[in-house]
């Protein structure tokens, strides 16, 4: 084995992985594998490089044959090959779509920033946004004379600002839902006609605060609950299932099937409506599952505590 240069080592590892090393070279490599930790990383790299070379058609005929009959005998390597192949397929499909330019990314961030401003009950966040943008714009005017250290500080400040705005946006959305709920409750009271009041709340995966589940109190007249479940929902999932279990004994109390129409526009949450009567005071576990191809997979679990009506 010649490890003097990285390319010679890579060539030597490649022969080893393909079972094409002369016996002496193979023995030396085995000794190296059992004495140096760093060679394991180099072998991982050589495996990956070999797979890429195969997929690009860069292997010679004997190498292709050894690749198929020797290298791919390992199930791990077969999976690795399929992952690399699938990545190529995915990117070749995406190539027809225009790649998001920095301009488009900025525009989408701008749209995300602007969304809360269009929402009701959000003046404070809007003022904060304008103030922060003002500070940032002011800094930008003199940015050419700043040192790179100051620029890094500004970027850091901007990133913190973005995070703060996102938090404000989430809070704004919650306020808007609360407003809507109050408006609906007010409408319900003013209308003598028989309606079923709906109470909405948002659950994040896990939702344990200091080891305790999120506590929910619902108005006594709320017949139904709109539960919005935060989840990173895969775009290829078509069907969903929500199951509510009692935490104390795991007994299944209620379940519902959902379609993609229940997902929010940005794919970050899904809403399910359930009768409040199934949830007396107590702790519950809600499981959201989804399926792309008929096989349901657990996406998230949510814990919450009903404080009673």
């Amino acid at each position, binding site marked *: 084995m010649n490890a003097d240069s990285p390319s010679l080592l890579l060539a030597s590892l490649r022969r080893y*992985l393909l079972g094409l090393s002369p016996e002496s070279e193979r023995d030396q490599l085995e000794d190296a594998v*059992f004495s140096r930790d760093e060679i394991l990383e180099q072998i991982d790299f050589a495996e990956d490089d070999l797979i890429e070379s195969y997929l690009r058609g860069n292997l010679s005929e004997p190498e292709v044959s050894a690749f198929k009959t020797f290298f791919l*005998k390992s199930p791990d390597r077969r999976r690795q090959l*399929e992952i690399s192949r*699938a990545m190529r397929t995915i990117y070749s499909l995406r*190539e027809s779509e225009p790649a998001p330019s920095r301009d488009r990314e900025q525009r989408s961030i701008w749209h995300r920033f602007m969304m809360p401003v269009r929402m009701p009950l959000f003046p404070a966040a809007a003022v904060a946004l304008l103030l922060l943008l003002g500070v940032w714009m002011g800094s930008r005017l003199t940015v050419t004379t700043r040192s790179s250290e100051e620029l890094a500080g500004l970027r850091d400040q901007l990133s913190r600002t973005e995070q703060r705005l996102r938090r404000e946006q989430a809070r704004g959305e919650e306020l808007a839902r609360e407003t809507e709920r109050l408006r609906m409750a007010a409408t319900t009271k003013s209308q003598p006609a028989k309606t079923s009041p709906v109470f909405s709340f948002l659950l994040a995966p896990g939702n344990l605060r200091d080891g305790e589940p999120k506590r929910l109190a619902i108005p006594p007249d709320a017949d139904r609950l709109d539960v919005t479940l935060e989840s990173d929902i895969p775009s290829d999932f078509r069907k969903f299932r929500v199951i509510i279990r009692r935490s104390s004994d795991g007994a299944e109390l*209620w379940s519902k099937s959902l379609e993609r129409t229940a997902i929010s526009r940005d794919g970050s949450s899904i809403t399910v409506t359930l009768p409040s009567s199934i949830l007396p005071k107590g702790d519950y576990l809600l499981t959201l599952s989804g399926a792309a191809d008929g096989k349901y997979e657990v996406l998230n679990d949510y814990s919450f505590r009903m404080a009673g009506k």
Partner: protein
Amino acid sequence: MSPQLEPFNRFLAWLDPEPQAAGKKYLLLYRRLQLFFHGRGCGVDADALADMTVDRAARRYAAGDVLSSDPLPYCLAVARYIFLEHSKKPKAAELAFEPAAPPQPDDTYEGMSPCLNRCLRSLPPDDEALVRQYYEGEKQERIRGRGETADRVGLSKGGLRVEVYRIRKKLKTCVTDCLQRRSRTVTFPEKGPHHGRHD
């Protein structure tokens, strides 16, 4: 401590007296043994032979038959011996020329694309952009494209390969974990008795 576990635990302590470090060293040893047996063309038998090596080395060590102070060279010696035994079996010769097994359902594009898509989405934006540019550059103009991508991201061509390898490795771990989670599938009866209410 059960009689089977005792030699193994003593073997782990030989790898490192600190249990967590011993666990990590054991995983590295196992990877080394897999490489050894794959390198010798043992194919589908590689994992079983790696297990056999650990088992034999552990039993010998627990019995006080090992003079070596370093477990790695000792395990290599045991692995070589076990390979000799294995190669004497007629079946071994047949296995050496056995074609690779067909991929499992989860290892096909259709099987893994939901997981892969999800893992790609979970990549940091810079990593995702780099991988995208890497593959796009490759299709457009193999060498020139990758050179251009490398220039654009301020890396040498070799550096770019290493970066993309690092990301693919991360993806492989993510996809493998995701496929394992997917195997924790939930079956819902279409009809029939149901303990709770279904809307």
